[in-house]
């Protein structure tokens, strides 16, 4: 008997047809309601269980790090002193900046309108760098809005919106592109995701000066992300004189594996 007349072939063919139908229905947007409902249930269960995991993990981490607490505390106190001084200096600079802006009749910088959201799920497969948050079209979440973690660390942008949840593509996803600049030198380039490992800072012209430890922020060019959101710091340079552009690896400022509360910039 030919294989296509067998019962096994019929069953396999039926399974493939069902999957293909679901793919088409999803592409046309007919599965959005079902997905939204499923993600809500799944997100609820995951949030509860991961809270327990985090507390257990935190407990063990505390036990292992308890011997370093005294030295860490001294170091952090020193950092608090340094940052307080830096903060005071920056406040003065901000006031001066505002005064000069007013004097020169510059446009006032707009304040961000932040919507607090909670992470429902991380991609369990690890094949994509995407997460699902608990607010959607009902809360006026829109495509391409920037998502940050307090107070201004860039996480990603909204890539799909459902009724009461949304999908966020993290900046570590290979499809993510962010216009960025180095804080100190102002060198501009494009930050691309490297699949969760790090970020690649590309297309920096050879005459720009960049070095390890430089902070990288969004440049606001192309309008995808607001200006001034922190992306991370340069961890390694990768370029030689013959290349047209300089490249550098960026260590993200955010721990993308432990995201919980985020903000959507509206």
């Amino acid at each position: 008997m030919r294989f296509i007349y067998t019962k096994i072939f019929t069953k396999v063919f039926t399974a493939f047809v069902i999957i293909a139908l679901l793919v088409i229905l999803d592409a046309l947007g007919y599965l959005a309601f079902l997905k939204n409902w499923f993600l809500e249930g799944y997100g609820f269960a995951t949030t509860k269980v991961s809270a327990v995991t985090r507390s257990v993990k935190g407990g063990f981490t505390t036990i292992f790090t308890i011997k370093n607490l005294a030295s860490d505390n001294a170091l952090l106190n020193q950092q608090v002193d340094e940052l307080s001084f830096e903060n005071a200096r920056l406040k003065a600079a901000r006031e001066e900046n505002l005064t000069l802006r007013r004097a020169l009749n510059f446009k006032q910088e707009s304040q961000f309108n932040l919507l607090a959201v909670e992470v429902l799920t991380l991609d369990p497969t690890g094949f994509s760098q995407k997460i699902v948050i608990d607010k959607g079209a009902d809360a006026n979440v829109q495509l391409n809005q920037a998502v940050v973690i307090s107070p201004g660390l860039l996480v990603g942008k909204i890539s799909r919106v459902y009724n009461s949840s949304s999908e966020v593509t993290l900046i570590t996803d290979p499809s993510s592109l962010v216009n960025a600049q180095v804080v100190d030198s102002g060198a501009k380039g494009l930050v691309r995701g490297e699949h969760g490992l790090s970020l690649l800072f590309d297309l920096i012209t050879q005459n720009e000066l960049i070095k390890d430890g430089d902070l990288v922020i969004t440049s606001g060019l192309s309008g995808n992300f607001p200006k001034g959101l922190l992306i991370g710091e340069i961890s390694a340079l990768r370029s030689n004189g013959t290349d047209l552009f300089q490249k550098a690896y960026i260590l993200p400022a955010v721990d993308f594996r432990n995201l919980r509360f985020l903000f959507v910039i509206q």
Partner: protein
Amino acid sequence: MKRYILWLIAIFVLIVLQSAVFIPLNFDHVNLLLVLIVVSLLFADFDFGLIFSTICGLILDFLSGIPDGIFAFSLVSIFLILYFVVNNVLAKEPSLLILFASVAVATLLFFGLFLLYNQIFKMFGLATVINYKSLLLFDLPSALVFNLLLTFPVLKYYTWVENLNRKLSKNDPQPVSS
């Protein structure tokens, strides 16, 4: 029918465990549903395995940010390939060695088929962007190690759910024979 409902709940529990316990503990790229499919192809019949792999694939598609269908097609293909290899090439004798070898092969196949179906979906503009270097050099070895590490616990989970299913079936009222 009762068996499928029980297994739907069991799959849901397993995927919640994967997301909420193993991934926060840095078990990156572990795929418990893939391991469960391999266990089912050794212990269950063809029909159950086929439905099982289709459902697992669709759940992964729903939860990942990847276009729907890529994981479902990959998992069903893995089930079919391994089912015919285990039944026609090897004698279907469930042993731990065959189980662990099947999990290792399934993990390699999963990555290969994922890339293949992603290329096919690309023709329809539905593919996801892949960083091949990190996928093959970092994700694949990590998935292989963690899947093998968790094979035995998943086997125990499978037998526990099947035993539970048998117990529930025994408690059902039996039809009265005339």
